């Protein structure tokens, strides 16, 4: 018999090596849940099916729990008081007793509202309800009567009206009705990431639409996040995530109605009582999701002239604001890592916060 040749040995080796790729190929496990009033996209890197299902269940439990507990207009299940009960007590001028986690959330919300110069204002639940945004489906219009809006703006409810003593909460202003829709998503997504970490999962993204938190990486490359174009379907820009970061975007396209040719969206300016104007979307990147979520609303309302001041006050440095003319304003810290994905690229203005 002839000796096997070198070529034959090389080819056999190559084939074996290639076949070896098929053994354990790490991949992403992806699924979507409908909770938090939105669609939540979960990505897990290199986790087997059984652990992935356990992880998704853990995320779903955390998000559902927060969704039900902090729901601004649907009462909790029997025996489980939620935000609607707290709001009813505040409206009646009573003092409510709440849990330790609730106290922490409310105090944090107060701090963020103060840092955001009360532009991020979760005390304007009545105004949000008046506009019809206390509904799973966006309202049809028409917008509320101007005098109704004026009345609620003049009542000037803010988070500073809340008095929190130990586990007791009351309000100095009976017009305070809490709606934490502006920051709860960030809080919820961060808690979901905590739940994943507790299960030993270190490479994941939990994305609740406008707000996501990413940890670890997609194997040997970073997680890649596309940011929606606020003016048309598609992606405007993308980011490669660093190890532990949140990305939150507020846009005028999320919840809105068009009435007589004018768009009315859900991000209300507490100073005027009307949807904030001049901005299409704001994206904030920072590790803390609650901060990012509160900041994107505050910066959206602050607008082209005021966003830098509010970003400084809130301590966020990576910001992109797209104004109504599709000019993209961003901080140098955002500009150095953001990749534009539209051609031709939009007009970009890089503005330092200092």
């Amino acid at each position, binding site marked *: 018999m002839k000796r096997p040749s070198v070529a034959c040995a090389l080819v056999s080796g190559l084939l074996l090596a*290639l076949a070896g790729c*098929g053994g354990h190929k790490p991949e992403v496990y992806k699924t979507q849940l*409908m909770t938090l009033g939105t*669609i939540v*996209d979960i990505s897990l890197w290199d986790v087997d099916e059984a652990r992935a299902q356990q992880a998704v269940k853990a995320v779903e439990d955390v998000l559902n729990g927060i969704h039900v507990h902090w729901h601004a207009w649907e009462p909790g299940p029997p025996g489980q008081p939620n935000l609607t009960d707290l709001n009813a007590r505040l409206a009646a001028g009573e003092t409510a007793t709440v849990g330790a986690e609730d106290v922490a959330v409310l105090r944090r919300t107060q701090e963020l509202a103060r840092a955001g110069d009360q532009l991020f204002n979760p005390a304007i639940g009545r105004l949000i309800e008046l506009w019809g945004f206390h509904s799973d489906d*966006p309202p049809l219009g028409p917008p509320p009567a101007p005098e109704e809006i004026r009345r609620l703006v003049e009542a000037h409810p803010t988070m500073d009206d809340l008095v929190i003593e130990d586990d007791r909460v009351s309000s100095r202003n009976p017009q305070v009705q809490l709606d934490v829709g502006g920051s709860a998503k960030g809080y919820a997504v961060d808690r979901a990431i905590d739940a994943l970490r507790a299960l030993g999962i270190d490479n994941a993204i939990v994305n609740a639409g406008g707000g996501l938190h990413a940890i670890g990486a997609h194997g040997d490359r970073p997680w890649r996040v596309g940011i*929606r174009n606020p003016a048309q379907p598609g992606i405007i820009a993308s980011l490669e995530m660093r190890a532990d970061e949140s990305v939150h975007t507020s846009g005028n396209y999320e919840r809105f109605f068009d009435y007589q040719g004018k768009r009315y969206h859900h991000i209300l300016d507490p100073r005027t009582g009307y949807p904030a104007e001049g901005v299409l979307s704001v994206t904030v990147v920072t590790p803390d999701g609650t901060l990012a979520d509160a900041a994107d609303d505050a910066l959206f309302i602050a607008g082209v002239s005021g966003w830098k001041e509010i970003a400084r006050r809130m301590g966020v440095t990576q910001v992109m604001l797209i104004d109504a003319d599709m000019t993209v304003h961003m901080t140098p810290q955002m500009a150095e890592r953001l990749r534009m994905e539209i051609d031709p690229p939009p007009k970009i203005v890089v503005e330092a916060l200092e």
Partner: protein
Amino acid sequence: MTRADYFVLAGALLLLPWLYASYWHRGGVGEEVRIVGADGREILASLRKDREIRIEGPLGTSVIEIHDGKARFVSSPCHGQLCVHAGWLHLGGEFTACLPNRVSLAVVGPELRYDTINF
């Protein structure tokens, strides 16, 4: 080299493109869509075969169309119509949903251009 060696070599060279495509190909285009209805029932449908899929939800029927490698909500009984306005999806990782009717649509692909989309 013997004649058999040439056969092995030729066979290996022919196999290579297939192996490359199977293991290293990084296309961004999706292959299937996963549709989840209100009852949690999941439908996996190939993007290569044009069809119309009707899903019942609490509000009525959502209609999803697959055409030419893309998928979209044609109609849904919600008044927001965000799902319909999302338009055609075709890249792996793209997703949308009719939340009021509890129907979601996601493109499943081998490699994603974006791992997720902030919207």
